């Protein structure tokens, strides 16, 4: 009895291991399927291509159903669906008969016309097509060491295509122009005054073209997308000279002037509708400069016509750092991935 008691757990364990052992054979099926065990043909001579005993895997490359059906039309589906032991053989045909591949379907599919156009990037991460971009930013002047012109700005761009947008933007400079200490030092040392100008605002209509996009892996861990664009347009900028030569008499008013602009930008996407922006834009316009000479008489000095003299084609190059919000926030891709 003692010995029988000792063997009972072992038998129970074997009974449990049995199904697990067949499961492990199942896991080896891919290799076994190509090289069937010698017992399989002997056990099931009517279905030589059928899966080995105990297997429930799918073998799409070796359709067992068709040869069996052809050999014995009466046996047909049952032969295909069962192995030599009569247990179900599994496979897509058993799970979903409608999805079972048929020889005729394969021929038809091979002759089907397909759209061979393959895009380099099948689904662009952040589509711009027919989306509105809101772009608030802060700008800094880059090329004026005499007067800095910082200020807030806002751009609105509507993307007609995925790479081309039409939009407007505007900057507000009023009250933020800063005449640097460098001007004072220079005037004191050399007794030479340089005509200075300040800005009030500008407004522009622009076209944006996005020829470059890509993605970066950051620290080999996360991926973010970016694009680079060129922008150009025309608009108006309101400026005036800062009275340096004769500040006692000269009080200039802001005047709007025609301006053209061109620039390049980089946009880094944090998600599909939110991005950070850095743009370098050159606003080119014809500036009126303060007259460096002063009238001899009080009447001449107070004559506004004598306050300005030269015009100068001026480049106001500024960096614009901001964010982009794309509306609508989401969309559906036309083609699957």
């Amino acid at each position: 009895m003692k010995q029988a008691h000792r063997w009972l757990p072992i038998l129970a364990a074997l009974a449990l291991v049995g199904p697990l052992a067949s499961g492990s054979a199942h896991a080896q099926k891919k290799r076994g399927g190509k090289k069937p065990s010698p017992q399989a043909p002997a056990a099931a001579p009517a279905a030589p291509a059928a899966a080995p005993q105990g297997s429930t895997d799918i073998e799409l490359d070796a359709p067992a159903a068709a040869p069996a059906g052809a050999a014995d039309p009466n046996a047909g589906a049952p032969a295909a669906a069962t192995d030599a032991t009569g247990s179900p053989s599994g496979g897509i045909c058993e799970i979903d008969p409608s999805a079972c591949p048929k020889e005729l379907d394969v021929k038809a599919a091979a002759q089907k016309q397909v759209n061979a156009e393959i895009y380099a990037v099948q689904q662009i991460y952040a589509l711009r097509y027919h989306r509105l971009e809101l772009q608030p930013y802060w700008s800094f002047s880059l090329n004026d060491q005499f007067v800095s012109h910082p200020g807030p700005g806002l751009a609105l761009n509507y993307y007609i295509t995925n790479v081309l947008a039409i939009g407007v933007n505007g900057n507000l400079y009023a009250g933020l122009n800063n005449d640097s200490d460098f001007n004072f030092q220079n005037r004191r040392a050399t007794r030479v005054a340089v005509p200075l100008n300040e800005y009030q605002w500008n407004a522009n209509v622009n076209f944006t073209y996005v020829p470059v996009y890509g993605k970066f892996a950051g620290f080999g861990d996360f991926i973010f997308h970016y694009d680079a664009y060129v922008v150009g347009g025309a608009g108006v900028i309101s400026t005036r000279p800062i009275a340096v030569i004769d500040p006692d008499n000269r009080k200039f008013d802001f005047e709007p002037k025609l301006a053209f602009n061109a620039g390049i930008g980089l946009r880094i996407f944090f998600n599909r509708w939110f991005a950070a922006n850095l743009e370098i834009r050159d606003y080119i316009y014809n500036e009126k400069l303060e007259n460096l000479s002063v009238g001899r008489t009080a009447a001449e000095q107070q004559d506004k016509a004598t306050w300005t003299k030269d015009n100068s084609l001026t480049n106001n190059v500024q960096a614009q750092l901001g964010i982009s919000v794309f509306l609508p926030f989401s969309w559906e891709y036309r083609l699957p991935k």
Partner: protein
Amino acid sequence: MRRFVTAAKKSATTPKIALGKAAACAAVALGMLVAAPSEASAQEIQLTGPLKGAPAVRQLRLYREGRLEIAPTFSFTFLDEYKRTMFAGLRLQYNIKDWIGIGAWGAYGVVNSSTYLTDRINETSPRNDQTSANVSPNKASGFNDQTSEMKWIAAPQITLTPFRGKLAIFQKLFVDTDAYFHLGAAFVGVNERGDCGAAGQTKCTAAASFTPVSRTAIAPTFGLGLTFYASSLVSVGVEYRAFPFAWNRAGFDSRGGGNDGKFPDGKVDSQDRTFRFNQMISLSVGFFPQKRQSSE
């Protein structure tokens, strides 16, 4: 998210995992019941399948790792007040890993050109007692000659490349790209107006006092750049560099006097140097003589 979708697709197309999936679902359901009080864990996407723990990019072309880079550079300063400089240089860098490299950049100022302001001062500044200590009496090109210029730069530096990727141009041309930061020390050879006006020195109003002398300024240098890999052997780069330090760009006597030292004191010396955030843009062509590797 992309990993998750890929893993989900894989499981959906492999029926033999269906049993395991059901068991996993049951386990997840049980786990959710057990972990219900923890809201954060309920939001996590547990990545399973073959991509679990996989790197963001496989077979990444390691353009830098273990490779020496030799890159001729062309650089130009910008936002200069009196004089611009163009440099021809060379960068030598050994990239220990794909994300870190050590090296040095050196350049020589091949062109120093005056700005509009310099020309204007030279032409219009009156030469009288009020300007005699600050503007060279030589009207031919006196002021241009007295303004300071950078002659050479040597900068040992470390380069960190955290971002690796690619870009598409016109959806036709695809280029492997990386973005990097560099940080180091810059030794800058500067030609600057010499000291004058102190006891035993030339008077600052004398024509001889406007002659520049050489000195070496030391400054931190840092910036960022983009590298575009045309092939595994050649790259093209664009880089921004800042190297702030104090120098007397115009050779003026503008500091040292008054109560706060912000007025002229009749001497030109180190007190007249003012801090300047010097900046430049560099273009480079990099050559990598060693063979490129790939990640796993």
